[in-house]
């Protein structure tokens, strides 16, 4: 479903991604772990072209997004990017729109479906994230956890095949983290393909079937949670686990 081959990325002299390769199958839930500055977010953002890689290949559902660091033309790119949804650490809801319009805006812009149909989808998705009563609220009236759940519903509105989560709970209080993680778990039960950059090791082990552990721009370990974390002799991973668990 996702093929990443030998991608590299530098910010000036700083090489953040050094020859990264991995693949994701349909229905996989991939947790991306690693210390701060290891390149987790950059790697995730590269997949949806919020960062552009300098070299390597990215293939999404069989379509090449970039090869040798050269991206396909805009029209093709858009078609590929439309298959992915993304959720950010800081939610990035549109503050000047109520929740309903946050969900509808992009779909209406893209003429994804008729307004009636989209409104129906919006109320279904809000029900799914348990926020039906907030449909007319403004983002500023919601708690962090509620905002993030709206952001997830908004991403689902575009009916993506793959969801990317960039530290979805890092800006939340521990008690609000759970409500967001529950929604993500629910999605994994529905076999949504997901890549999640997170610091919640417990959640990663529980919900992910695959873990990618990044360290200084390299993949230090990859595989099932047991393989990648617990049966691994890598000193960096041991040190990391000791610190966070």
């Amino acid at each position, binding site marked *: 479903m996702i093929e990443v081959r030998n991608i590299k990325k530098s910010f000036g002299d700083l090489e953040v991604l050094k020859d990264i390769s991995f693949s994701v199958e349909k229905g996989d839930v991939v947790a991306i772990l690693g210390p701060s500055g290891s390149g987790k977010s950059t790697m995730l953002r590269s997949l949806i072209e919020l960062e552009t890689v300098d070299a390597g290949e990215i293939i999404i559902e069989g379509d090449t997004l970039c090869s040798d660091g050269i991206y396909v033309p805009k029209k093709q790119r858009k078609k590929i*990017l439309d298959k*992915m949804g993304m959720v950010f650490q800081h939610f*990035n809801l*549109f*503050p000047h729109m109520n929740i309903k319009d946050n969900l509808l*805006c992009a779909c209406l*812009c893209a003429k994804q479906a008729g307004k009636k149909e989209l409104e129906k989808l919006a109320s279904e998705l809000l029900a799914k994230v348990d926020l039906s009563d907030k449909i007319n609220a403004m983002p*500023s009236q919601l708690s962090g956890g509620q905002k993030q759940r709206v952001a997830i519903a*908004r991403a689902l509105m575009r009916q993506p095949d793959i969801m990317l989560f960039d530290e979805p709970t890092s800006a939340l209080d521990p008690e609000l983290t759970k409500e967001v993680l529950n929604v993500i778990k629910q999605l994994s039960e529905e076999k949504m393909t997901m890549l999640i950059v997170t610091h919640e090791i417990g959640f990663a082990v529980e919900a992910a079937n695959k873990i990618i552990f990044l360290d200084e721009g390299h993949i230090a370990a990859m595989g099932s949670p047991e393989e990648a974390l617990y049966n691994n002799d890598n000193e960096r991973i041991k040190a990391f686990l000791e610190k966070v668990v």
Partner: protein
Amino acid sequence: MANLKEWIPLMLQGCGLTVKLFFIVILLSLPLGLAATFLYTGKNVVIRKIMGFYILIMRGTPLLLQVFFIYFGLPFVPKIGQYLTINDRFIAACTAYVLNYAAYFAEIFRGGLLSVDKGQYEAAKVLGMSESQTTFKIVLPQMIRISLPAVSNEAIILIKDTALVTAIGLADLLKVTNNIVNRTTNITAFIVAACFYLVMSYLLTVFFRNLEKKFAF
């Protein structure tokens, strides 16, 4: 005081010109300033340089000098002066004010633009919105909301700045008032004029407060 009835209508007439000038300038300079912001922050380097120069001149020299330059100065520009001459004082004043205020509004809007969070652009992009959809539906509404208090401030300065047209002989509120004071040798008219300006500023303040509340998020 006895002649209050006689000169209040004159002052109201002057007020009319002040208000007319205010509305023409604000209605033209706001959209022009917005356009200038996008040119100034756009991709074309040459246009950016030109806009930077325009804003430097307009903000860096006195408004009164600009009014004088456009009304008295333009006819003396070598060779092309005769084509640039604006004979109507009111139109000359409007031109100078619009050019000047558009530059200030451009900077205010640019500040608003810079305050729109980068995450907003990213969210719009990953949701599949085009650049123009992002500009008009996401960025512009937030930028205008952020700019409102500064625009309000500028509008209040403008209503008082209109008094400068007295210098090219336009019969605005201040000019009329000054004539009355000279004729009556009594300062009451000055105080009445001050009240007029205060009322106009106050109405603007209330108007913009309501606008801010309406667009609050």
